[in-house]
């Protein structure tokens, strides 16, 4: 397993490659900001994470797998800091650098799931996908989802209603739209229309977003 400094180097190689550049050893040494970089690069070569031919640095298969995981952790951490914790841009960058070294597999997957398997970091670069993303992709749709995720014609049962507006909650429930009720999504455009028993109700996307349903 590569240590912290080695991980930094692998990460840097990945990002330079990403920009479609050949990685030059001198450029790498200039860019990498760690003490005794020469020695770490040597170690990486010895442990066959990378190969250096004519000063050109390339990731080996083993190195690529590790670099990919580091990048994934870093960018997921950025997303977490940016979207959920709302920290400032510069703090985000430096914290994300620390996160990438201590997040383990399981925690990374949980963060990824929490964030809804994002595909790009706040800077717009791709986040390599993990096992959890593949799984989520295969299951297509989660079990309980907002009404807005239904396709027209789908039959579903209301699971719960989440909204910060009491008024909306009261209004929906007094119309009889409460958990347990079966509905059918009649159409999505131009506005959501649902069928509940013999009543057709039109509602806007803000309301539809707050109604969570389970397909039947």
């Amino acid at each position, binding site marked *: 397993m590569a240590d912290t400094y080695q991980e930094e180097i692998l990460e840097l190689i990945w990002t330079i490659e990403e920009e479609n550049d050949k990685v030059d050893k001198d450029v790498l040494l200039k860019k990498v900001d760690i003490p005794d970089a020469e020695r770490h690069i040597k170690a990486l070569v010895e442990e066959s994470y990378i190969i250096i031919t004519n000063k050109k640095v390339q990731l080996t298969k083993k190195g690529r797998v590790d670099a990919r995981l580091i990048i994934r952790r870093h960018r997921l951490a950025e997303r977490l800091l940016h979207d959920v914790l709302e920290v400032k841009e510069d703090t985000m960058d430096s914290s994300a650098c620390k996160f990438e070294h201590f997040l383990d597999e399981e925690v990374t997957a949980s963060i990824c799931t929490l964030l809804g398997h994002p595909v790009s970091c706040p800077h717009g670069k791709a986040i390599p996908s993990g096992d959890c993303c593949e799984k989520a992709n295969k299951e297509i749709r989660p079990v309980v989802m907002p009404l807005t995720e239904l396709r027209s014609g789908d039959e579903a049962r209301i699971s719960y209603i989440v909204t910060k507006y009491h008024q909306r909650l009261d209004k929906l429930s007094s119309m009889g739209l409460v958990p347990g009720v079966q509905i059918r999504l009649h159409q999505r455009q131009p506005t959501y229309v649902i069928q509940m028993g013999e009543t057709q*109700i039109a509602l806007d996307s803000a309301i539809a977003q707050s109604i969570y349903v389970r397909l039947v």
Partner: protein
Amino acid sequence: MSQKAADIYKVALVGNPNVGKSVIFGLLTGKYVTVSNYPGTTVEVSKGICKGLDGSVEIVDTPGANSLIPLSEDERVARDMLLEEYDKHIVQVMDAKNLRRGLLITTQIAEMGLPVVLVLNMWDELLDRGMNIDIVALQKIVNVPVIKAIATHRIGVSALLGAIPSAKVPNLSIDYGILIEEGISKIEKVLTMDARIHKRALAIMLLSRDEALEDNLRNKLTHETLVEIQDIRDDIQKHFSNPLSYVINIKRASFVDKLTKKVSIAHIQKKETHPLIRGVFFYFLVPLVSFLVGYKLMALIMYLISAGFQTSDVFSLAVSLIAGGISASYFSSSVYLKNRKAKLTISEILGSITMHPLAAFPILIIILWIVYKLVGEFGAGTCVDFFENKIFGNSLNPSGGFDIALSIPFIQKSYHVLHVDFQGFNYYLGLLTQKVISKDNIIFELFFNEQSGLIQVGLTYAIAIVFPIVGFFFLAFGIMEDSGYLPRLAVMVDKVFKQIGLNGKAILPMVLGLGCDTMATLTTRILNTKKERIIATLLLALAIPCSAQLGVIAGVLGRISGIYFALYAFIICTQLLFVGYLSSKVLPGDPSDFLMELPPFRMPKLSNIFIKTFYRVHWFLKEAVPLFMIGTLALFIATKLGVLSFVEKMGAPVIKNFLGLPVETTHGFILGFLRRDYGAVSIFDTLQEKGGDAGIDPKQLLVSLVVITLFIPCLANFFVMIKEQGAKNAFLMFAFILPYSILIGGILRIILQQF
């Protein structure tokens, strides 16, 4: 009971929106309330005397409510009526096919301890949908009289009359769980005042944080008691993550669900349309109508762009035919495919098509076109011409009478039947008056002045011009409303309206505004928030031309060229969106949710539509005619005092230099404040005169018509704005619209000069 019923109780009609309360009210009292298929139209309570009951029992109609713990103004009106201090029997009207939603209210009435009769209305639609209700079981469980009814066919009314005296308190009680029940009994104990309804109901309302009720109780209970009630509520709330009102509603809903299941009879055969009618619908009507839609739409487009490039008749005919063919094959196949998947009834299919994201727009355009033909061309053209020139005429010149002729369509032949030698009311009245006073006398002028006489202008205008236009418009509006098209239109426009600070609900005042802005301003009451009401009022005054004005404008511009009419429509729509967008950003307040019930698409009953139109026109004449008279009087006085010519002088430089119009048009703009269309006509005449042989300058015409449309609303509308929004807001809107309309006109002129 030897005492007469009248001395004992009143009857209150209660129920969900759109279940037919107003129709039943009409049947019980013989009185007419505007029955509407658009939720939220009854905002005020109507009262009447019930015919057919022993003595004179007063009966009140309430706005539709989904809950008696009010969430909106209309629900509050309905609930407050039940709290009033007199004995009452309730007639709860419900839509039989939506039993569950009706019973939600029944449980609330039971908690109040009020006697009730249940009316299961629209029984025919229930059966049509293959459902049935076990009335006997329902009656047994709830223990109150239950009546089947089809109100629009007067079925069930006499049974209802017979049942009202024996109304009973429903035998329904819901257990809300230990925590809430404890709270209810605690609050019941501190409610020491007298109340007509059970304190349990009051306690439940208070737990649900019914603020209107709390305000009500403020003068009946001490401050300490109210604080105590709050403490009890907060104490219970701690145990729940959801608001108590929601917890209570859920308990109520699950109770009602069980009850509904017990009395519903499992699906029987759904009524099917006769195969022959179905066949005609699918293989004949749909292709035919959709062909016409496509054909007409393309013809309209060709007309609008006709100024852009010259097309031969054969070419446009071919293009229109192709468009018709495409439309016919697309619609027919998609309707047919959809139907094969699910066995939908014809009205269900129509109901979905009219709010289909793609199909609905061409349909909308065609419907607008038909309404325009009916209201704008036939109503505002032919009828107004006849009424104004022939029936009313001129006080000084005879109209020359008119011919009655029988014309046979298609062969272009007409047979002259007779000549009516009628010279017009105003002519005869003028002759009569001249026997007493000379025509130069100021009194004669007060009534017969060509520009501001009370009879020659005020009354003639109200009846000869506005009456036919508004009458035809209300007829068209009634059909849209009763068929259920209007609520579907709300679905269509919701997204756009959200951008201008309104929601789909606001389509009702906006469409009504195309008939009469004055009446439309009154209906802005159905909107949820103050912000929405202000925006809607402003936009109606600014950018929605009423039918009288639109008729003239379309006629005038249409004669010049299609492209100018298209430009006109584009500019007005842009202004509507732009000003709406700005005011939605400037005015404080949150947007409100769009949550609306869509009534089923129905074949409207013509008799109902005629009655409705009659009552609307009646209302209009009663409300608007006096305003027209006052306005005319004001104009007359202003003319005589020289105020008018002063204003004209003041305005002339702006009109001439900024808008680039002849000075004489100033008069037209000022007239526009009184009668919108007359302003347009006057400007058109002036421009034509100035244009001389070269003809009218279309750019000038466009500028002036845009300005007169955006220009300050007519006097009647302005009075209503003051009534609804207060004098301050009305004057602020006035102060915005006046310079804004001229500004837009000026900008338009500068842009047009570049071409």
